[in-house]
């Protein structure tokens, strides 16, 4: 039970040991009864640790300039909020922060709006972090926001998009879940809503949408990780987006970012029938995936949610996969099914609805090393730009 910080070596030479409180009396008695002289050099190790934590926190807080923000690291909710402040300060004519609602536990739901003016312009919606444990998505959202802010006026394609359209980016779509992954359970997925009659917490925010609600791949069990919730849009995190997009009235694309599996998916998830725009979405996905691969060689598969899953689970009720999609056979199934955000968006008039599953394919899974954040974000960028450009060039 004692922890030697300096091991005994020769007689006459000191040794240092850390003693847990419950053993303190015993150890002192032992030393005394054997005539071993001893002094206390640190009264309370925990105190020192607490001080160290405080110093670390203070040094983090002093990094206020957005340029000093470490995009290659994972950050806490507070750090992301603080960085948002600096981004808005640094680009006041372009970036603003809106609050579209509050989470179950009362945290603000922030959306960054990138706009060069106009009113009620057509907009592209991007969300990251709907599932709490998918940390690379928040990190990619942060990097992408910086990319957009700094790229306007420099990147011709991005500039063309922003001169006509707005970009709306919700980085921490599930702040309660995200905070929980920092404080208690790194692999938490859902929201943190409580439900009468159940000791279990949380709803899968990507099964809580009204279209295909309660369908395949979601669960009615509050303890399940794919619990769809008591009713559609029961989660304030989801309702806030529903109300916002409906209220906006001019959202032309929704891109929902997840990890992991390396896929680019489009509707439908709740049925195997192809969406009316299947061909166009498929061609766009193929281009985006190709431009993504050109950066670091990372291979993504693409297709509709349901057929991409069905390629892996041939038994009924899956239909044979369509051959115009999918560069290679997917190695890993993505989030299947009913009640997903992009099925809802598509059914509500948003033609360009995509779901991205970022790195990797299972080697690290949710625990993607922070050294891979920037490679992931940089390769995802051209895919996002492809979609945004296509939307720009195909107004509806």
């Amino acid at each position, binding site marked *: 039970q004692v922890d030697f910080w300096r091991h005994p070596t020769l007689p006459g030479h000191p040794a240092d040991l850390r003693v847990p409180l419950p053993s303190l009396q015993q150890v002192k008695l032992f030393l005394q009864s054997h005539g071993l002289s001893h002094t206390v050099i640190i009264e309370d190790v925990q105190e020192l640790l607490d001080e160290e934590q405080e110093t670390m926190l203070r040094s983090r807080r002093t990094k206020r300039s957005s340029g000093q923000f470490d995009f290659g*690291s*994972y950050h806490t909710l507070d750090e992301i909020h603080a960085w948002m402040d600096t981004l808005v300060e640094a680009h006041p004519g372009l970036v603003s922060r809106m609050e579209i609602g509050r989470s179950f536990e009362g945290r603000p739901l922030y959306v960054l709006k990138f706009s060069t003016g106009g009113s009620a312009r057509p907009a592209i919606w991007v969300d990251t972090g709907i599932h709490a444990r998918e*940390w690379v998505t928040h990190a990619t959202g942060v990097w992408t926001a910086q990319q957009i802010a700094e790229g306007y006026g420099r990147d011709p394609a991005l500039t063309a998009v922003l001169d006509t359209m707005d970009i709306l980016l919700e980085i921490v779509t599930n702040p309660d879940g995200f905070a929980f*992954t*920092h404080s208690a359970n*790194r*692999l938490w*997925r*859902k929201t943190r809503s409580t439900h009468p009659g159940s*000791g*279990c*917490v*949380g709803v*899968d925010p990507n099964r809580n949408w009204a279209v295909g609600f309660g369908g395949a791949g979601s*669960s009615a069990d*509050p*303890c*399940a*990780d*794919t*619990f769809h919730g008591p009713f559609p849009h029961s989660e304030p995190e989801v309702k806030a987006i529903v109300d916002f997009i409906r209220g906006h009235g001019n959202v032309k694309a929704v891109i929902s970012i997840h990890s992991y*599996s390396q896929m680019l998916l489009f509707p439908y998830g709740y049925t195997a029938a192809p969406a009316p725009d299947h061909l166009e979405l498929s061609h766009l996905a193929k281009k985006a995936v190709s431009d993504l691969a050109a950066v670091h060689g990372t291979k993504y598969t693409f297709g509709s949610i349901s057929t991409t899953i069905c390629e*892996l*689970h041939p*038994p009924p009720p899956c239909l044979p996969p369509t051959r115009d999609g999918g560069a290679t056979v997917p190695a*890993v*199934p993505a*989030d*299947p099914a009913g009640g997903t955000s992009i099925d809802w968006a598509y059914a509500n008039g948003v033609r360009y609805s995509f779901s991205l599953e970022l790195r990797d394919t*299972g080697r*690290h*899974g*949710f*625990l*993607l*090393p*922070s*050294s*891979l954040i920037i490679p992931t974000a940089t390769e995802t960028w051209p895919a996002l730009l492809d979609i945004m450009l296509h939307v720009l060039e195909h107004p509806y």
Partner: protein
Amino acid sequence: QDIEGVGHKYHLELELEDDLDKDTTVNCTAEVLYHLGNKNTAPDVQVTLEGELKSTEEADHMFYTRIRSLEKELVAENIPDSHGHVAPELEPIHLLAWAASGYIIWQNSTENTQLQLAQITQVKQVKRSDEYLQFDYVVLLHDMVSQEIIPWEMTVLWHPRDGVQVTRDSRQPGHPSG
């Protein structure tokens, strides 16, 4: 391939990449037979390597000697950590868990499962009087289909000569929504 009355057979062509030497690849083929009906039987797997895997004798010996000479039994938690990092001296412990959980995943696989090792919650070395190294792990497996995180206990024995053995494993009740 649908084999009537028996099950479904899959023929796979795989390319293995050496993690320590990315330019080195070895091809291999595999046949996996999922049995009809009885979900308690692991699929039959036959693997043929087309080429040779590099010798790991030196690294194995170093790891073995290092662990055998530890005064205190090794204990570690959360590998990788929240940021995806693994301390270099714990990398072999991590790799051992990968191999061992591969066995567990195989034993618990059907055509409709997709399990991955997500994280090692805890590992404790247990010193033995024989020549084997023993590690008692609690690992978390991620089920892609249900999205659940499943805790699993496993006892792993290892020796440079004999490789990995999982001598005991048991699925734990999760704390799914606390």
